[in-house]
């Protein structure tokens, strides 16, 4: 479990500033969802945490500034499922999963985790030896999520995990999150357009608008907000 | 003008500052026209050879830069063009026939190689083209009756007409410059047309290109053929500049040097082709003055240094500088708008 804090983070690409003074806190063992319109800067926020974009301001993991290099961040126990294709297409499904666990030494536990993830996503067992690039869009997304979990992270960053997933699977993933949070001591920051589901499992929610935090609060508070209902929930 | 940095803005971006561009272009033309009249024969030869290799590099750019295929065969096409014109000159046939023969033959060979090569990507393609110079050198020696074998051919072509009163090096300069300007302008127009976009799409993602109606194989073959034609034409210009061709010129090393020139100058940039060629021609002369014995080592070090300082090549680096300067100027006048 980890605590993630952003204090006054500014980030962007080249000259284009995307995040303006973003501050948020993802408490130890909590699930926080990050909402926002297309282009609001959600992906950029996660990328800043992972060291994939440079930022100014402070990003603290358990009170300490995160390193600048993505691999160093990952070695602190941060797993990032990027938006879109997050797998290594040239490797087999199994190799992808094992690559997720390369930093771990507890081999027996790795095998157990693998079994569990295969139960959750049976297709990963069926297609264990196929090249990951051949999987369907949704299957690749499952692989990306499973691969991140194989690392047994303490902080899980999910960028639109439901992207390309069938409704049933999406639900399963969101049901799984609180369970894993408890069993595996996870802290989760999830960007999600299926706000309905996300707000149901999340403890906290943050809404980004044009790179600024527009709203933050408990999931229930946010879900009760009128504007949020109109833009994200539609009921 | 054709030598300007290729910004690839088919939607008219290139024409946004038409006067500035035309002025720069005109200035460039004048400088280039006056150059041989005031400079030494050695300087003229260097510029002439630079333009020769620039055409060959532009051909490579069409293949490597535009469509993303690797080729180690450019020296062979260069040789075909050169031998084409030299053989004709040697037998007393008209030079234009030699030009046509050399360029067409290069194009035909290029097309023949391209048809199977278009099935391949990346390094596999590079290997196929590697075969070309490896085979071309002994072949040129074997066809001794026409090529003069290992001794090569000494020819006298493109002699300065009496009335010009020009020395050979000056006349050769103008001939080569005119030829190079012509083929550069043609390539620039092609690049700005929708073909330029299609070539890019083929490079970036073949499936994507196909979905937009681009026949990937045809475009690869087209690029390969054009590239060979440009290589062949460069070979023709080479004979104008050097008046000699022998199998030594066809070797793989030249192909590799041209690739290096392309990377040094910067991909997808007409100016880059010229700068890359200039690097290939001028730097050895400079390092040779520093130390004849270590000139090659120094050349290698310069190559590494330029690549390290400007990983995307000199032309893009210059482009960025120019745009920064222009940008600053642009901001300065902005409030007045």
């Amino acid at each position, binding site marked *: 479990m980890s605590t993630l804090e952003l204090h006054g983070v500014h980030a962007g690409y080249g000259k284009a500033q995307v995040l303006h003074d973003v501050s948020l806190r993802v408490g130890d063992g909590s699930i926080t969802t990050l909402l926002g319109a297309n282009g609001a800067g959600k992906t950029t926020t996660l990328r800043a945490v992972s060291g994939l974009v440079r930022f100014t301001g402070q990003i603290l993991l358990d009170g300490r500034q995160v390193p600048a290099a993505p691999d160093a961040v*990952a070695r602190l126990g941060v797993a990032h499922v990027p938006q879109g294709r997050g797998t290594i297409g*040239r490797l087999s499904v199994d190799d992808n999963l094992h690559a997720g666990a390369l930093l771990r030494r507890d081999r027996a536990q790795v095998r157990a985790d693998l079994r569990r993830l295969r139960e959750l996503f049976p297709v990963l067992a069926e297609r264990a030896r196929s090249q990951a690039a051949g999987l369907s869009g949704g299957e690749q997304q499952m692989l990306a999520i499973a691969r991140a979990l194989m690392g047994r992270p303490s902080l899980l960053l999910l960028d639109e995990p439901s992207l390309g997933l069938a409704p049933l699977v999406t639900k399963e993933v969101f049901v799984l999150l609180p369970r894993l949070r408890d069993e595996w001591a996870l802290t989760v920051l999830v960007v999600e357009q299926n706000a309905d589901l996300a707000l149901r499992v999340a403890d906290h929610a943050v809404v980004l608008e044009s790179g600024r935090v527009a709203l933050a609060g408990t999931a229930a508070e946010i879900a009760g907000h009128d504007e949020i209902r109109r833009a994200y929930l539609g009921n | 003008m054709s030598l300007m940095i290729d910004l690839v803005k088919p939607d008219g971006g290139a024409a946004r500052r038409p006067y500035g561009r035309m002025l720069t272009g005109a200035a460039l033309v004048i400088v280039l026209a006056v150059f041989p009249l005031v400079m030494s024969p050695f300087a003229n030869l260097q510029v002439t050879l630079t333009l020769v290799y620039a055409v060959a590099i532009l051909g490579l750019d069409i293949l490597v830069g535009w469509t993303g295929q690797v080729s180690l065969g450019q020296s062979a096409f260069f040789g075909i063009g050169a031998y084409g014109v030299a053989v004709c000159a040697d037998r007393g046939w008209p030079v234009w026939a030699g030009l046509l023969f050399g360029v067409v033959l290069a194009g035909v060979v290029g097309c023949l190689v391209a048809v199977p090569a278009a099935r391949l990507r990346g390094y596999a393609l590079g290997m196929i083209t*590697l075969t070309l110079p490896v085979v071309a050198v002994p072949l040129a020696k074997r066809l001794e009756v026409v090529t003069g074998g290992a001794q090569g051919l000494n020819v006298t072509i493109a002699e300065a007409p009496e009335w010009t009163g020009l020395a050979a090096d000056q006349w050769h300069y103008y001939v080569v410059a005119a030829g190079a300007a012509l083929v550069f302008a043609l390539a620039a127009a092609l690049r700005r047309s929708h073909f330029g976009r299609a070539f890019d799409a083929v490079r970036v993602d073949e499936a994507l290109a196909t979905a937009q109606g681009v026949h990937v194989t045809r475009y690869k073959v087209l690029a390969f053929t054009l590239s060979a034609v440009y290589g062949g034409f460069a070979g023709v210009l080479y004979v104008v500049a050097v008046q000699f061709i022998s199998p030594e010129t066809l070797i793989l090393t030249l192909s590799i040097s041209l690739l*290096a020139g392309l990377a040094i100058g910067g991909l997808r940039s007409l100016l880059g082709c010229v700068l890359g060629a200039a690097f290939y021609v001028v730097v050895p002369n400079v390092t040779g003055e520093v130390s004849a014995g270590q000139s090659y080592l120094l050349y290698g070090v310069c*190559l590494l240094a330029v*690549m390290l300082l400007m990983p*995307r090549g000199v032309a893009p680096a210059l482009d960025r500088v120019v745009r920064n300067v222009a940008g600053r100027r642009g901001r300065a006048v902005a409030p007045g708008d």
Partner: protein
Amino acid sequence: MNLVQQILDGLSSGSVYATLALALVLVHQSTGIVNFAQGQMAVISTYVAWTLYDAGVPVWAAIVAAIAGSLVAGALAERLLIRRFEKGEPLAAIVVTVGLLISINGVVSLIWGTVLKQFPSAFPRGGVGSGNGGTIGFGTLGTIAVLLVVVLALGWLFRHTRLGLAFRAVAANPESSALLGLPVGRLLMLGWGLAAAVGALAGCLVAPKLYLAPEMMDSVLTYALAAAVLGGLNSAIGTVLAAWFIGVVENLAGTYISFVGGDMKIAVPLVLMILILLFKPEGVFGHKEVRRV
């Protein structure tokens, strides 16, 4: 006798090509780059070994020392030079290796001169067989044995170890691998280092036969590239088999097809290679890559 001997000779030169090709494949497998300077790096390593030997160090020790040194030097080359080009255009990376080739060649000529040196064989002189069966030198046999050991070791490393998986992941997708916490930079360095070490071994193995000179590996590079691509660029065993194939076919064509002759014999394996690649573009032992839209 001629036929058998030509085949044996082909295997012998094929083994020369294979040693360098293995190093090429190793770099490609771990960093996705084709390193034109691989041969030249091997040459400088061999000169180092020669210098040690010349100073009285036993051959084997000199070779081992050169291999160790090359491991470090290769890693440094990656870190200081190649690193900047791994993400950009592949051409830039290739050209940087060409620059490296030229520079190392210059440095070797500067330090050791251009005149050839005799490199001691780690294997005894002479060979086995003779008369009708053909002969094969101990040097070649030794080279083949070392080759096989290297191939098995590399195969095991890449297919069955965690390090191998890490190499493959990084070569296929560095960004994604970094997100998994793999030390991408260090793995790339190690990949280059290993390749340089294999290259050093290659140089020391072939130097007794080719004689040590700054351009020793230049002519081998063409063949090694062909073998690496024909073998699929990702398969050690495929590379060695392809190299042997090239060596043998070249000799047989030069011997038995009269119009080919000594000057054009190299063309035959290359043309065959083209034909094979047309039907199997990913190389004989390469995996067909699945691409999805």
